[in-house]
Structure formats: structure tokens, C-alpha cells
């Protein structure tokens, strides 16, 4: 069989979870007959039927809100919001209802739901179809936020997210759906909250996730020829995030760059940098740097879109600064 893509891994994870647990149901716009805007749910309608693979109206608020009520009443819904940008319309369900229920109701119930959100720019989709809003959710106690970057992690994290008793924001990068990669058989064990060292190195730690992982590895390869060894950490989970893994790496390299596609200001990197400046202070041999998108909406024009994207060349520039 051809090397699977991220899209195939997600599809297989959904199928395997549905086969293993009849409480798992899928809700989303055009996910059944059409197979989802990015083809992630193709074939699932035929296999599991319209009761469990449900096309919804274009009503993000009720899709997400119904998933909360269904989860409270014993189902394990997986919601697809077509683009992460549209999640603005579903924020009450996620922030005020799902995230609070376990705490607010004294543990009487939990909300085992997954919200799938495709994020990321670089495809000229413009300001309302490109955003990386993960920091919003990482700011909400009660949610978990994951963002896989590889084929294997896409499968394993999806299974972990569906098995998790708490609401999980599952972020998929649009640029990665077609990425090919290894799909271990049996799939690797992955826990939410556990980072992976994607490349070992002694000079600078790069903490990243999602589509930026590939760019970080490109930069690491280019710099290796100049004798600079980056240690690239694939965070995989943004909430909770693997502080221990980042700290372990910082103890080796004493230099940290957080690298993500989300807008740099108040992005996930801000929390990681602040936390490491606290618990890792005595390890630091240079200021912690962040590389992210500039403080501006994404744009349609390819030129602007490219200029805003935190490319691996920008990461290399930051590496040079941190080694100065």
C-alpha cells in the first residue's frame, strides 16, 4: 500500500474509534456524503451509516453545543468545524459549556468530545480562512489542545483525543493533510501532553508544533552543514504541554526558540517562553526568542501571505541571533 497521508491516518483513526466504540459519532458540515472539505471523513458514511456520521446544517453554534449535550448524555461526539476561523461561532459551547461542565457540576459528568479544527495559512485563503487560534483554547481551563505534525501522531493523538474524558480541541494543519509519512503497525502509543524530540542537537532548542515542524527540520538540516545542531521538539500537545521535555532540552542547549505559525504576540510561544524564563532561568545563556507570524491578519495576496509566514529562513535568522 502506498505511504499514507495525514488525511488517511485521521480517517483510519476515526474509523477504528467508531468500530471500537459505538458511542462515537461524527457531526459536521458536509462530512457525510461529501466526505468533509478536506476529505478526512471519506467513506465513513458508507461504513457507519447516517445515524453516526451526520451532515449538519451550517450552524457551528448548534453543532458544537449539541456535541456538549450529547457528551453529557453518554455519546462521544467528534465535531468537524470546516475551518478553524469558523469556531468563533461555536465559542459559547466550547468555552462556557464544554470546558466548564466537569468542574462546574462537581464532577457529576465530563464532556468527552473532540472538536476538529483545520488551521493554518499559506494557501491564499485570506484573513477568514487561515488563522491559527490555538492560544485562545490553551487559555481556557478545562480544555485540552493537541496539534499533530506527522502521520503517526495524527492517528495516535486522534485515538487518544476520542478516548479522553475531557473536551479536546484537535487542530489539523491544512498544509499537512497531504503529507506522507510512516504509519507504524501497530500505531505508536502517544499520550496527550507528551512532546517528541524530532531531532537531537546540542546548540539551540527549537520548540514547535504542527506545520512548522517540517520547516524547523529543514532549518536544522541546513544549519548542520555549518556545524550548528538544533534540537527540535515537536510539542504535539499545546495544553497540557510537556514542560519537562522542553526543560530537559534547555538543560542541554541553554538556548530556546519557540517557533509557530500562530501570531507571535500572545501566542503559545509567549507562555512557553515565560514559563521557561521562570523554571529554566539558570539554564539560559541567551534571551528566549519567538518566531511566529507578525501581528496582522493573514492576507489573500501570495506575496503578503509568504512574507507573513514564519519561514525556515526566519528561524535560521533567529538561530544566528541567539548564538551571537
Amino acid at each position, binding site marked *: 500500500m502506498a505511504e499514507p497521508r495525514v488525511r488517511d491516518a485521521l480517517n483510519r483513526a476515526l474509523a477504528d474509534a467508531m468500530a471500537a466504540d459505538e458511542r462515537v459519532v461524527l457531526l459536521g458540515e458536509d462530512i457525510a456524503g461529501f466526505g468533509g472539505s478536506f476529505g478526512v471523513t471519506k467513506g465513513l458514511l458508507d461504513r457507519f451509516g447516517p445515524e453516526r456520521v451526520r451532515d449538519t446544517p451550517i450552524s457551528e453554534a448548534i453543532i458544537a453545543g449539541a456535541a*456538549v449535550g450529547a457528551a453529557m448524555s453518554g455519546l462521544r461526539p467528534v465535531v468537524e468545524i470546516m475551518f478553524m476561523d469558523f469556531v468563533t461561532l461555536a465559542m459559547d*459551547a466550547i468555552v462556557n459549556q464544554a470546558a466548564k461542565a*466537569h*468542574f462546574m*457540576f462537581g464532577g*457529576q*459528568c465530563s464532556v468527552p468530545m473532540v472538536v476538529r479544527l483545520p488551521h493554518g495559512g499559506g494557501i491564499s485563503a485570506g484573513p477568514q480562512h487561515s488563522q491559527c487560534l490555538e492560544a485562545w483554547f490553551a487559555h481556557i481551563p478545562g480544555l485540552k489542545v493537541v496539534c499533530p505534525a506527522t502521520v503517526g501522531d495524527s492517528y495516535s493523538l486522534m485515538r487518544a483525543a476520542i478516548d479522553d474524558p475531557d473536551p479536546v480541541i484537535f487542530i489539523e494543519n491544512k498544509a499537512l493533510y497531504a503529507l506522507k509519512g510512516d504509519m507504524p503497525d501497530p500505531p505508536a502509543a*502517544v499520550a*496527550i*501532553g507528551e512532546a517528541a524530540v524530532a531531532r537531537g542537537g546540542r546548540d539551540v532548542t527549537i520548540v514547535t508544533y504542527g506545520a512548522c515542524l517540517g520547516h524547523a527540520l529543514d532549518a536544522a538540516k541546513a544549519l548542520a552543514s555549518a556545524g550548528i545542531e538544533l534540537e527540535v521538539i515537536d510539542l504535539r500537545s499545546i495544553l497540557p504541554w510537556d514542560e519537562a521535555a522542553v526543560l530537559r532540552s534547555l538543560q542541554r542547549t541553554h538556548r530556546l526558540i519557540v517557533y509557530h505559525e500562530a501570531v507571535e504576540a500572545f501566542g503559545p510561544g509567549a507562555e512557553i517562553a515565560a514559563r521557561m524564563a521562570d523554571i529554566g532561568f539558570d539554564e539560559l545563556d541567551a534571551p528566549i526568542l519567538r518566531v511566529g507570524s507578525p501581528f496582522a491578519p493573514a492576507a489573500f495576496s501570495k506575496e503578503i501571505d509568504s512574507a507573513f509566514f514564519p519561514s525556515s529562513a526566519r528561524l535560521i535568522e533567529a538561530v544566528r541571533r541567539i548564538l551571537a
Partner: protein
Amino acid sequence: MRKQKAESGPDTAQLPRWLDFHRSMHIIRQVESRLATLFADGEIPGFIHLSIGQEASAVGVCAALELADTIASTHRGHGHAVAKGMALDRFFLEILGKDEGACRGRSGSMHIADMGVGMLGANGIVGGGLPLAIGSALAHKLKGNGAVAVACFGDGAMAEGILHEALNIASLWKLPVLFVCDNNGWSEFSATKDVISLDLPQLARAFGIASRHLRGDDVVAVAEAAGQLVDAIRGDGAPRLIELHTRRIRGHFEGDAQRYRHDDAADREDPLVNHESRLLRAGVTPERLAEIAEAARGEVEAALQIARAGRAACAVGALDAVYAQRGAARYG
């Protein structure tokens, strides 16, 4: 046979049920009257929204429900919690913020919930309970358990888009939902007629949802209509809507001086008074009614005393309760 003889005289077969309504409404009235004084005395902090005057709605609707049915309520949700069967001590422990409260003191009045009796929570967000009931109904439908989910909302929520999304999807997916609108004429501090132009019967019709619209001050009429609608839902699985015109006797919240309010022609009566008249006409003695009311008062006081003796809620425990599973869920 639910059919009632037309005002001809006492229906002895219905009398036990009617007395039960009387008792339930008195308990809710007592509960909320005590909450008003506790709030005024500073024993309860935060926000308290009372449903005094709307007891017939909660009691009449819940009379049609079974334990397995679920109800997602509003910020004015004490009546729904008690009528759905929540134990009074659990209720007061929660409202007083105690560790033994149903929600461990984390929800208070505005989010009170009791999953054990299918009460999915009062809700601090106007319209917030609607999608929860939709999801719960979906779960009932997929499990095939024959249960119904009740989606409570007020007339203020008619202006929220989520109502329209909920009606659409309930009708589209044929979900076992009973929408219940407590229409008290007030959208918080504004008269609903000043802020909303829609007509609920027309709205229900637009989504193909059968509906009933009646005065909410007659518990027997409410119970009858709700019973018929719930039976219909159980029969064909499709959603129904009931709109109850009620009267909010108190303010939006306790402490609301209601300076904006010049109406209250009181075209709706107090449902408790209303129902007492019916019982007297049916031959129940005033002494018997007073006795029931007094028993209700005693039950409420006893629960309150238990609650006052409860342990204070615990901040350390609360920090551990943010997640059902802290840290990592693992695949493989």
C-alpha cells in the same frame, strides 16, 4: 384518560395528582422565598434569579417527564431542578456553596445541576441550555431509550440565534425534544415586546414544529398540554414546542429594584392562588391546603438546616477538578 370533564365539578380521579401539584408548587415557592431572604440577609452571595410566579410551568412540564428524561434549564432554573426531582438538601447545600452540594459548591444557583435526575443544569448564558438539550436528545435517539429532552428558554432567548439553529436541527433530525418557553414578557430589564419582533407560534410553524401556546398560571392546563406533547414526542420522535405565558413576580435578579417596570397589570394570576381555588372548588378544605403548605415549609426548613451545617467548599479540591483526567490520556 387525561381528558378532563368541562368545569363541571370535582374530578375525584385527578385529585391526588392535583394535590401533588399543590405540594410541589408550594415547595418551590418556599424554596425561593427562603432564597430571597437568605440573599437579602447576605447568606448567599452572587446572583439569584427567582421564578416566583412561574411555578406552574416547572411543575406542569415536569409532571409529564420520567426520570430518564433530561432537562436543560435557564438561569431561572430552581423550579426545574426541584420539579425534576432534585433532593432539597442537595439543592440547598449547593446554593449555600457547600462541599456536599450537588456541584461541590462550584455552580451555585445559576448553574445548578443534578445529573442523577436528568437535570443538565441551569445556565448562565441566555439560550445556553438549548444546544445541550439538542445533544441530549440526539443521545436518547441513538441509544433508542425512548427518553425525551426538554429545552427550556425564556422569551429573551428568542433573540438568540441559537434558538433558530436548535429548532432547525431538531426538526431536521427529528429529535425527541420538547422546547419550553417561559414567556414572562421580560428580556432581563427590557420589555420583550420592545426588543423582539418575532411571533413564537409562527416561528415554530416555520420550522414545521407542532406547538401549543397557553397561559402558564394554570398548572393543570400546563400539565395536560405538556403531557400530550411529550406523549406525541415519544410516539413519533419529532420535536414539539410549548409556550407558557407567565408572570415574573420578582425582578430579573434579587436586588433588582425594577424601576424600569411600570406594567404588571397582573393579567396573569399567581398560579398557587389559582390552583388553590380549583382545589377548594373540588371540595378540598382550606385546612387541608394549609396543612400541605405547612408541610412544604417544614421540608424546606429541614433541608436548609442540613445545608447550613455542611462543610465549606474546598479550593484545593476544586483545582483538581478542572479535568476528569488530569494530564495525559494515552492511546496505545
